[in-house]
């Protein structure tokens, strides 16, 4: 689904919840939209107005890639996720549903190219390669992903400035997991 549809969805939802828009509720609505193939959902509030529009096929609303909220929504609404109510809640949701990452046009998201452990420094005693606000050259090491006892340096794809460090030092990292955001100069 094109980006502007995504946008419209969000706006509509925002209207409903007014000041207090909980991410959880947002997810629930998105799951409903996906599951029931809605292309439009409008809810006004107390006292009325519901408007629901379905698209062509029942499940035609698409679900998008890792990192996007649709991804998280799909997981949250899954049968087995629901079943997990019965079990101890997994931490997964907390750790993975890091929320939507908004990028400005001049920003680049650094994602992990492999599974492993994220380290901000070359050794336990050393200072971190970068901090938020650090200026970086193209090719400068940003962090390390340790995989199979190999230290893999992740280099900056461009010259710029580190605006956000997303991953936590020492934490396990999946393939494709967001590590940090670089503002390209």
């Amino acid at each position: 689904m094109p980006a502007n549809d995504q946008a419209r969805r969000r706006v509509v939802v925002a209207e409903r919840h007014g000041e207090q828009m909980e991410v959880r509720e947002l997810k629930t609505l998105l799951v409903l939209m996906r599951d029931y193939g809605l292309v439009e959902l409008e809810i006004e509030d107390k006292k009325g107005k519901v408007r629901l529009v379905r698209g062509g096929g029942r499940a035609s609303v698409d679900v998008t890639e890792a990192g996007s909220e649709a991804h998280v929504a799909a997981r949250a609404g899954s049968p087995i996720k629901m079943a997990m109510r019965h079990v101890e809640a997994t931490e997964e949701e907390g750790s993975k549903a890091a929320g939507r990452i908004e990028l400005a046009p001049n920003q680049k998201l650094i994602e992990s190219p492999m599974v492993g452990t994220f380290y901000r420094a070359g050794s336990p005693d050393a200072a971190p390669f970068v901090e938020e606000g650090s200026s970086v050259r193209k090719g400068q090491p940003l962090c390390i992903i340790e995989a199979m006892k190999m230290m893999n340096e992740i280099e900056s794809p461009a010259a710029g400035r580190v605006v956000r460090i997303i991953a936590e030092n020492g934490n396990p990292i999946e393939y494709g997991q967001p590590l940090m955001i670089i503002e390209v100069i």
Partner: protein
Amino acid sequence: MFKKLLVANRGTIAIRIIRACRELGISTVAVYSTADKDALHVRMADESVCIGPPAAEDSYMNIPAILSAATTFGADAVHPGYGFLSENGDFAEACQRSGLSFVGPRARHIRLMGDKPRARRIMKRAGVPVLPGSEGTGVTELREAQADAKRLGYPVLIKAAAGGGGKGMRIVRDGAELTRLFPQAQGESELSFNSRKMYLEKYLERVRHVEFQILADLHRNAIHLGERDCSIQRRHQKLIEESPCPILTARLREKMGKAAVRAAEVVGYSNVGTVEFLLAGGGVFYFIEMNTRIQVEHGVTEMVTGVDLVKESIRMAMGEKLGLKQRQVKFDGASMEFRIYAEDPERHIPSPGVVTNHHPPGGLGVRVETALYDGYRVPVQYDPLIAKLIVHAETRPEVIARAKAALREYVIDGIKTNIPLHLKILQDPDFNRGEFSTDFLSRYVPAEPEAAHHAPVSKAS
């Protein structure tokens, strides 16, 4: 007992392994590609790790990524399932080197059985019958071919030693035909593969694919859990498997079972494995190969023996001793597995898409193994096997009746499946009589050029 097991697979077998681990109290780590982020195995596992992009070689067959996931997330064992890395000796070895228990046989057994000519030689030496054929690297002269044919007995099959795909292949029924057709076949081989080397083997007209389930511990104890008839297959795809084989006598079962156990014992095999045979008329059978992993169709053996093969494979990998002696293995009733593929039943091409309505059948003697759920999108990148319907009952006719009822109840909307084909087969009089061979499916699905009369057999899992 293992504490945490990484499931290096996806789909129905990943679900199967996760369920077994839950029962054993082992926590699970699922791995997945970006194409599988919404997959059921990811949701069912205690933890899950994205290991790479959709292409299998970059994710489910990416050894460093899987090992890194296992060590990073603190797993102490890895179960490979079937397909992907399950018969990769390097992977088994790499697991061990990283301090991870590999749930399966030792690396050398995977490699040995993967080397088909070597496996054949070992089996032959151990007295396990193998399909008779030319010795060594093949024949180039007519008189050599004549000598081989005489030794094998007509009919024989001439094949190009260097190639496949039906090129250079001739069925020969007597000496005169051999004299006439050998040069033709050789000419074709020369044109197609630039080689005059030919290979002769015994030609079997109507054969069944009958395989024996092996269970072995690390202490040189091995038993078999009876056979599965997997003759209902098309190219590399088995469609229906059943146990017992409807034409096997108790005596033949014992004989083949002993040969299968011998095949495992002679190499000191451990864990689960399957010894595949071709069964010809008159109770003659030949070793084809040994699969060194759990099979797709392990469920039918579980139904008739009551043995949980996946739990056993984990126990064996932990070094537990086999709890069962051969004579304690009891066979109860009959069972069939129906593989449900996401495919167009008319054109036999994959049919990926979103499952808009999922309602599996249930009730007595009906077991469903699936990774589907309502709203799941079947990805295009992987095997189209989306479910296995496994039916058990007292007798074969009751299994067929129950299977018909269950298949008619099954609802998978949004994608096409081969359920209609299964229902057609269940109406077939020969199928109902148990009279069929590996060419059975050609009456229902378009025939394709096959490399040899039994070639499809050897690749089916």
